[in-house]
Structures are given as C-alpha cells and as structure tokens.
C-alpha cells in the first residue's frame, strides 16, 4: 500500500518553470519509496516571502488557507506535503497562526467563504524531507540504493527556510545533520562541518538586490569548494537556482572559476536508485552534474 499525501507542488514546479526538475525527480523517488502524491486540486500561490508589499497579512493568510481548505475537502486524512521551502513555510505558518488566533481564524474563513471554502484547521503541514526522514527513515532510504554514489563529495546546503523557523524535528538551527545523513545513505561523502550549510543565498532579493545576494552566494560556493566538494545538494528551489545559475556572473565579477553543480536531494537519490538521467532530471542542470551522469549511464 502506497503512503498517500495531499501534495502542494507550488508555482515554480509547474511545467516549464524553474524547479520543474525538482518535481520530476521527486516523482521518481516517490515511485521507488511507495509514496503517492495527490496534487491539491486548483491550488494557488502561497505568496512566498516576497508578496508583502502588495499583500497584507490577511490576504496572504487567506491564500495559504485556501490551499489547506482544498486539501481538507479533497484529501481528508492526508497530511499536506510541500517540496518547496517557501510553500511549506507559508502554509505551515498559516496553519499555526490560525490555530493560535480565533480572530484570524474567523476573519480568514469570512474571506474564504467568497471562494466557497472552509478552513477547519485539521491538517498537518509537512515538508517532503520530513516525510522521508520520519515516515520512511534513513535506513529504508539507503536500502533502495542500486548505484552507490561512491567517491563523490557533496556539500549539504540546507539554506534558510527548510531550516528556520520550523526546521526538522530533533535538528538544530545552526548545524542540522539530516541532509548529510541523506548524502551518506546514498553512498556519497558528506561534509558535516560545511560552514555555509544554513547561510542565506539572498532568496528573492537575488532579483532586486543582485550584487548583495551574489556576494552571499559567492561565500556559499567558496566554502563548498574549499571543503573539497564536487557538488552542492539542497532541498530548496530558490537555493538551488541561486547557487547554480549566477556562477558565471560571480566569476566575471570576482575573478573566481566556479563551475559547481547544484542538485536537489531528489536528483541525487534518483541516480542512486538506478533511475535514468531523464527520471533524475539531470537534463535540468544548467551546470551539468557530470559525475552523476556517469553513474546514471553506467
């Protein structure tokens, strides 16, 4: 029996969008692990953590409440699961805040009525990584490995919003270990003391403050390089994009020579699980992960 979840994919995972490769590789590992993701019908954007100029507190809460209400209606008894850090954060924050405040709960429901929906607050909102760690476990994750990622050294870049303010149960904010454990479970070498593990990549400010944000990414890449990493792995769509696609711009500005692949944990796991380069979404790498391609094509 597959484990079923009410899945909130988020805008950037849609076809032809910036983290569509994360969705593809996530699907691939879920097939192996017996996880069934049921997409929340007609879900909407969570407004991420940048919608606040135009969107007030209540409109933003209403957006996430609508997604949870749709999940309650269509997928009762299934936890809401998101793969995107910002989607998870906004949805869980809304769930928590409406549980704490009767006033916000009532006001949000008044707004939701306009969309013909009701928020009851009966859902748990979880990150995909929580599902993997808590419902599957490191041991089982490792047991499906067909092609161990031997000899590859990987910097586990957790970033911000998968880690703060909620994080993963039992992990510290300053040095969470789960991503390193996942890397090890796939047969690769982790870098547990990677010192930019939970540093910020600038997030959405990469668009509005590119120079300040690229300076942050440069440090994340430098630290990975100096730790001997062959590649970076991350759970977050914004972290992935920011650490990958601006390397040319950073090289031009700082005279560095970065050419460091940055992959999703789901891509890493798909390759270790013996799936094709297509399933692992390796074609979605702007900086190709040649070491993973070699293993996948073996």
């Amino acid at each position, binding site marked *: 029996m597959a484990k079923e979840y009410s899945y909130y994919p988020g805008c950037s995972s849609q076809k032809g969008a910036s983290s569509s490769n994360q969705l593809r590789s996530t699907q691939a590992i879920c097939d192996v692990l017996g996880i069934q993701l049921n997409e929340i019908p007609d879900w909407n954007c969570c407004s991420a953590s940048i919608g606040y100029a135009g969107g007030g507190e209540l409109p933003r809460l209403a957006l996430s409440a609508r997604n949870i209400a749709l999940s309650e209606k269509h997928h009762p008894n299934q936890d809401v699961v998101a793969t995107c850090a910002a989607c998870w954060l906004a949805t869980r924050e809304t769930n928590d805040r409406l549980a704490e405040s009767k006033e916000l709960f009532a006001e949000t429901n008044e707004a939701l009525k306009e969309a013909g929906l009701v928020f009851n607050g009966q859902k748990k909102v979880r990150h995909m990584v929580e599902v993997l760690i808590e419902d599957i476990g490191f041991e089982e994750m490792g047991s499906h490995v067909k092609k161990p990622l031997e000899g590859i050294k990987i910097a586990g870049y957790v970033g911000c919003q998968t880690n703060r303010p909620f994080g993963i149960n039992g992990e510290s904010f300053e040095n969470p270990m789960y991503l390193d454990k996942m890397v090890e479970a796939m047969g690769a070498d982790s870098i547990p003391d990677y010192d930019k593990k939970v540093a910020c990549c600038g997030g959405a400010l990469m668009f509005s403050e590119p120079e300040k944000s690229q300076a942050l990414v440069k440090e994340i890449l430098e630290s990975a390089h100096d730790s001997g990493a062959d590649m970076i792995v991350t759970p977050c769509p914004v972290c992935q994009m920011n650490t990958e696609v601006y390397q040319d711009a950073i090289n031009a500005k700082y005279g560095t020579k970065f050419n460091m692949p940055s992959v999703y944990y789901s891509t890493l796991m798909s390759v270790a699980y013996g799936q094709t380069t297509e399933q692992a979404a390796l074609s979605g790498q*702007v900086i190709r992960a040649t070491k993973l391609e070699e293993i996948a094509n073996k």
Partner: protein
Amino acid sequence: MKYRNNFLREVEANVEEGEWVKRCMQCGVCAGSCPLGPHWEHPPQEIFMMIRAGKREEVLSSDSMWMCTSCYNCIARCPRELPITHIMHGLAHYATRLGLVPENQQTNKFAQKFWDNLSKKGRVNELKLGLSLYFMNGFMEGIKTSLKMQKIGLGMWKTKRMDPMEILGGHGCEDTSGLQAMLKKASEIEAAKKVKV
C-alpha cells in the same frame, strides 16, 4: 479619536505582529545574524527603538526593512522570541500602503510586481514576472538587463526550466474569480480594522 496617540500604538494596531515591538531588549543579535546586516541603515533593534521614540517618518520611509531576505535567522536567535521577520514585512507593507517607501526602492518594486502577478491568476507566471522585473526601471534599463541576463535565460530555456510560451497566458487557477473575491474580502476586512492616524 484618542488623546494618547503615538507611533508605538499605531504600529501595534496597524502592523503585522506590531504588538511585539515593545518587548525588544536591544541586544542586537538580530543585526549580527542578518545576512544583509551591513546594508541596513537602521538594523532591527534600532528600528524598534525608533518606533518607541516616535520617529514615524524616519522609520516608515527607511530603506532598512526592505533589506530583509526572509532567512528567519533573527527569529531563530532572538532571546525574546520576537517575530522580527514578520514585523519587517509588516512595516514594509504599512509603508507601502501609506506611500512612504523611498522612490525606486528595488525590493519594494519587485515585491509589488510579485503580488500583482500572483493575484491575477492565482499562480506566479515566472516568465512575465522576470520580464516585468527587467523592465521595472525603464525601457533602456530593461534592454540592458535583458542582454545581461540573456545567458541565464538561455540556460533556463535549454533545461526546460523556462517556457517562452508562458507569455501567452500560462499557468493559473481555474477558480480565479473565487480567488480574487477572497483576496478582495480579506483586504476589506483588514482595511476596516486599521486605526486611523
């Protein structure tokens, strides 16, 4: 009408999580933990003290809260557990409502475009958002930025992480009218609660 109006009361009433402001103990851990710390004209603890000191114009027309990357480091470390990230978003939103944001503030412009983009169809259209962002500082600036970003765009297109066809419409919710009615209602409820200054 009330006699004892002051800026702290205004923030408590009108800004998201504003009731936490007075609990700041001025330790500065937030400033030291912020990835863009050096770029804040007034770091969070200073903003909190300025609110208590009644420096309304200086706070709301400040560039500072627009430096927040939403990394939540300040929240994770604040010994008084202030939801600093949310207060900064709240101040930024309030300054926008009042028209006090410094002219040409880039994150304000982007954040507004993001909201406009998502509230149209319920989902973000990355292509349109990206293009509107390149051109937000005028046509010539837009051409320059587009050329600068050409290589990145090409990389995203080749890897199927950008779809030029999205310009024709693209992804969206089915129930856009319900979604928009919901957002309108939420804005109305919120506006009705704001205390007039």
